[in-house]
């Protein structure tokens, strides 16, 4: 545990986020990541009227833009920012890009920051992405059957089920409900209804992970803008403020198998800063690469008592009209996982819900959204965790 003296976190006054952009996903694309980033900025321009020279801050996340980083994208896309960021935290990149951009805007380092995540998915590029994902993966994970994240999360899922008495059917309720949520999202790659029996009868991928526990890798891009309330108002952009955010890396390294994330370490501070509790949230957009991670976020972020996750999964209705609307666009499990954009879509969907411009059905009267990110399985577990609480202005 850190011995650095802890000061209270400064509030995110004077910052808003706006203009949630989702470029419709494709299962496979021959377009490079740069093209998807360009598509995201085109959509952003349509939405906001911003052009390349109007942005003075740029944050970029991608797994497939190699050999380019955010720097390459700047020149590629004709930007001239005075603030630049590259956020390589995958499934946590949306919240983390937001946090960094918010501080830049708050401190005057930038006035309008475009945050973009874009990834392509060429035939076989998923395998190549995996093979070069991280040094520990290359050395110590992929040589063991090359099951990709499926195998890693199979181990985590098995241990979690054993520890908490969670059954496949409990996880199935998450997947089945998210599929129902995707039904109203025209951009979701998988919208056909899924019932629990079909979920349970699916073929095993890496026991106990079965087909419908896995996301579908795809190409796509997401974006949003971080700016000042004044600029948003002047341009007429609906916007939301940031009530609180947290981030943590490599939490609980001594847990032999991952059984919780960094959220558990920082959730109290998140809610204290936001000044509200989980019960005050209108929708939760949690990172859902596998249902076990959704369960961890529910417990770690305080939506349910730590030891009652199995019952919570059975008793809670996660539908758009439910008691805790969860992943209202269908989440990655139904909408698809577009690389780093998968770490953005929870943020853009949460923002849309509270700005009342959803892709699909609206959570009635939603004003506050909790967003949770989880990224980078560097070795045997996800390393990066983040969360944000947003409120419509």
């Amino acid at each position, binding site marked *: 545990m850190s011995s650095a003296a802890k000061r209270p976190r400064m509030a995110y006054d004077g910052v808003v986020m706006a203009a949630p952009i989702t470029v419709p996903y494709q299962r496979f694309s021959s377009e490079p990541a740069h093209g998807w980033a360009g598509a995201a900025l085109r959509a952003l321009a349509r939405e906001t009227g911003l052009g390349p020279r109007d942005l003075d801050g740029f944050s970029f996340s991608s797994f497939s833009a190699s050999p380019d980083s955010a720097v390459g994208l700047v020149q590629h896309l004709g930007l001239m920012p005075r603030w630049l960021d590259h956020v390589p935290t995958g499934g946590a990149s949306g919240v983390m890009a937001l946090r960094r951009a918010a501080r830049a805007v708050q401190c005057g380092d930038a006035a309008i920051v475009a945050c973009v995540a874009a990834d392509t998915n060429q035939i076989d590029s998923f395998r190549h992405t995996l093979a070069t994902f991280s040094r520990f993966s290359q*050395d*110590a994970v992929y*040589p063991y*059957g090359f*099951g990709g994240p499926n*195998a890693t999360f*199979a181990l985590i899922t*098995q241990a979690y089920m054993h520890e908490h008495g969670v059954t496949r059917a409990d996880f199935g309720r998450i997947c089945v409900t998210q599929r129902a949520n995707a039904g109203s999202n025209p951009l979701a790659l998988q919208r056909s209804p899924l019932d629990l029996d079909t979920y349970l009868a699916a073929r095993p991928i890496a026991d*106990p992970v079965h087909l419908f526990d896995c996301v579908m890798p795809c190409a796509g891009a997401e974006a949003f803008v971080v700016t000042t309330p004044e600029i948003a108002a002047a341009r007429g952009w609906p916007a939301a403020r940031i009530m609180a955010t947290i981030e943590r890396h490599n939490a609980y390294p001594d847990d032999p*198998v991952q059984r919780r994330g960094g959220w558990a370490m920082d959730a109290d501070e998140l809610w204290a800063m936001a000044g509200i509790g989980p019960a005050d949230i209108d929708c939760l957009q949690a990172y859902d690469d596998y249902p076990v991670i959704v369960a961890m976020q529910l417990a770690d972020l305080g939506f349910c008592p730590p030891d009652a996750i199995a019952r919570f999964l059975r008793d809670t209705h996660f539908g758009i009209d439910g008691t805790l609307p969860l992943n209202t666009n269908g989440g990655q499990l139904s909408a698809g996982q577009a690389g780093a954009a998968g770490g953005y879509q929870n943020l853009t969907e949460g923002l849309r819900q509270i700005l009342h411009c959803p892709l699909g059905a609206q959570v009635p009267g939603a004003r506050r959204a909790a967003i949770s990110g989880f990224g980078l399985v560097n070795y045997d577990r996800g390393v990066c965790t983040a969360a944000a609480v947003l409120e419509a202005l």
Partner: protein
Amino acid sequence: MTTPRHRLPPPAPRDPLARPQLHPVPPGARSRAMQAMAARATQGRFVLQACTVCDTATYPPRDACPRCWGTLAWHDQPTGGRVLANTVIRVSTDPYFRDRLPWHMGSIQLDAGPVVLAHLARGLEPGARVAMRLMLDRGGNAALFALPSDAAQVPHPEQGATSMSADPQGRTFVVPVAGATVLVSDARQPVGGALVGALAAAGARLVVAGLPGPAPVRDAHDPVLGLPGVQPLPLDVTDPVSVAETVSRIGGPLDIVINTARHVRAGGVSRDGNLLAQHRALEVSAMGLARLAQATAPILAGRPNGAFLDVLSVTALAGDAGHAGFAAAEAARLSLLQSFRHEMRSTGVRVLEVFTGPTDDADYQALPPPKVAPARLAAAVLDALAQGREQTCVGEVAREAMRRWLDDPALFVRETQP
């Protein structure tokens, strides 16, 4: 030589009309630290890095201690562990594993401290005690393999080896002899002769006993050469025609080549150096290996468990004033062997080396003990195959030489050239 306890049925004959199966190797890219782990795995050691300051063992291999940022060094570690979680991978995008699904793996809490992901022997469930082995996979990279501890902790070392070859996944890390066709390049010398008998007893389908000339009349009724499953063929590794003809006359595809050929003659460099003898030593040790490798590598590469095992003198490491030409030839042989191994990485053909000191035969009659009995060397070769161990040192002389060479090569060279 006793019959192994676990003998798998010989492989079914291949459908002659089926397209030959490609043999991809497991994903190969590794960090330098992981390569260092593999370098120790070649010797059959079970090692992890430990911090030189706080002593904490760490995995995966790192370049600094995650606890105190101290530097790390490799140390032998206790092999015990406990299964934390396991899975059966049924879908993989990697060509090597796709051919071998379903694949059992899991996470292990090592007694040494770290949690590792490992290949699991069949039947291991969470909570099970395991004995870890640090193997080399078919691409030559280090791989952790968990065996049930009761199977691996019996005192006889070969029992554990048998467990590896008895497990379907374990088999991919070793070189199964049972059911294999094996070529012994020089079965005329005692070492090769002992090896032919040992291979036949270990259940090889066919042992081709290479017989360099001159051929005495007694070849016709040699008891070992007359064993069932043993096919004597003239083979002189100094002759490319002979190598090609012998390989062409082997019935069925060749799985394993064991190169025992050598030409040991005493002599120095300037003093008592017989250049013809030295030339012949080079022709046998170095060029002979190259000829055998050229003729057999394409065949071995087409086999699911192809392997090339070379028996060579530990004098290859630093020379030998008393057998200067032979030691030089063996050094050249070792060099070629290392290049050959590198070449074969992408084919999955395992290239193994067995170092020996002086053998207890006519070649070293002038030397006092300790010497390696041919039967012992043969047993060590079989063990190297059963363990898939890339480097084996047989006998006190070779083991001690390797230890000293690894410890301080410059000092070792001084001390071995009095």
